[in-house]
């Protein structure tokens, strides 16, 4: 088999070499500045890519629906063609109605939750997953033009999903609560002990820095503490399934089962930072004594 030869001439090689050297030097000497420049250029480029991204996501959903229905129909007995056609039609209509009912119920719950708890949040759909294997993230169909920014919290009616780490004009990347690189301030609801919730490599979460004297036990619910990060207090994060107490350790930790299954998320709410009451607002401004 012969090697393909689309090679550039010698001058092009010199250009490539110079470019490579400049880039490596820039990466070593000015990492922060380069990051900012790349992020700013990324806005419009990300907007361009978001079009095929959303198109592919749409086509993918439709193909998934069609494929699902086709596979489901494989097992149907074909004894009577006329009855089968009628049955298929009714089944299809029934499936569509059921799907519509489930979607309506889900979206109504999301809307109600949004009205009750978070008056200023943005609803978004999940359109993709991380392009690499190092992080557990989801991609949303809303971005900077909808008011989304880094560090904003992302939730569903069931609980915490993660936080926004990157935005383009029309998409946002959300680092999931189950990613080991994520950290959210948590609180054990029963004992009021605070800690930091981190993801684990097994796809679960772990509450760290629980005081040794805490009476936390399996079954306790962990919620957001509202102290730092983009979440208000009291959003469910997970349930304790095991307490780990090591000899001579200063703290204990607890393994959590997250309330939200990251693989089944379809719609989420992004909490806009301005809607989260600060510590002073929650406690009330102290009034001067007469």
């Amino acid at each position: 088999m012969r090697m393909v030869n689309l090679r550039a001439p010698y001058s092009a090689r010199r250009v490539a070499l110079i470019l490579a050297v400049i880039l490596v030097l820039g990466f070593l000497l000015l990492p922060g500045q380069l990051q900012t420049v790349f992020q700013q250029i990324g806005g419009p480029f990300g907007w361009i890519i978001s079009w095929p991204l959303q198109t592919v996501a749409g086509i993918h959903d439709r193909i998934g629906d069609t494929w699902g229905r086709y596979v489901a129909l494989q097992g149907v007995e074909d004894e009577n063609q006329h009855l089968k056609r009628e049955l298929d039609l009714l089944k299809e209509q029934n499936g569509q109605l059921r799907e519509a009912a489930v979607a309506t119920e889900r979206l109504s719950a999301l809307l109600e939750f949004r009205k009750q708890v978070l008056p200023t949040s943005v609803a978004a759909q999940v359109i993709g997953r991380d392009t690499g294997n190092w992080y557990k993230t989801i991609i949303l169909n809303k971005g900077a033009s909808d008011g989304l920014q880094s560090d904003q919290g992302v939730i569903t009616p069931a609980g915490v999903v993660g936080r926004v780490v990157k935005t383009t004009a029309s998409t946002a990347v959300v680092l999931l609560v189950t990613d080991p690189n994520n950290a959210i301030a948590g609180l054990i609801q029963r004992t009021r002990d605070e800690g930091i919730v981190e993801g684990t490599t097994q796809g679960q979460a772990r509450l760290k820095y629980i005081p040794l004297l805490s009476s936390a036990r399996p079954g306790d619910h962990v919620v957001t503490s509202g102290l730092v990060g983009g979440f208000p207090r009291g959003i469910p994060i997970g349930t304790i399934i095991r307490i780990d107490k090591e000899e001579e350790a200063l703290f204990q930790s607890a393994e959590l089962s997250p309330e939200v299954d990251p693989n089944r998320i379809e719609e989420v709410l992004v909490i806009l930072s301005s809607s989260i009451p600060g510590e002073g607002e929650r406690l009330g401004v102290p009034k001067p004594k007469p």
Partner: protein
Amino acid sequence: MKGLIYFAVIVGLVPVQSVLLAHISLWGVKPDLGFVAVCLVGLLGGELDGLLVGLALGWAMSLFSAQDLISSAVLKGIVGFVAGLAGRQVVYLSPLVLVIGLLVVSCLIGLVSPFALKLSGQQDWWWTVSTVVLPQACLDAVIGGLIYWLMWSRLNIEQLMAESRM
């Protein structure tokens, strides 16, 4: 023409990688089509094409990931550049040699990535190698070899080469 093809590859690969590959991952790991594409562009187009496509593709893919915007661009740029240099030294390249080459380079990039990305302490060396690096390298090598074999056996590469030189 070549520029348009490269642009289409960059814009088209990101949705495929983030939407479709999530459903066909093996052992919880998906192949890095960007890496495969950059290697092939470098091998077939030379070091300048490899470098530029690597930089652009790495940057575009990191826009839709939690990783920083520079590491992936630089790593893919270097891969494209090295693939271009390698392509200059090789006269005959069989799919098997390409598969082995992709396996080795993907492993090397996988071992460097955790340091460039500054991952959590939980994601230690053993976890990195056994959970991400080796499975991903196997997938990259198989897919790269398959694409190369398909290109070679189904398309008239000589004619495409001649057109791209014009």
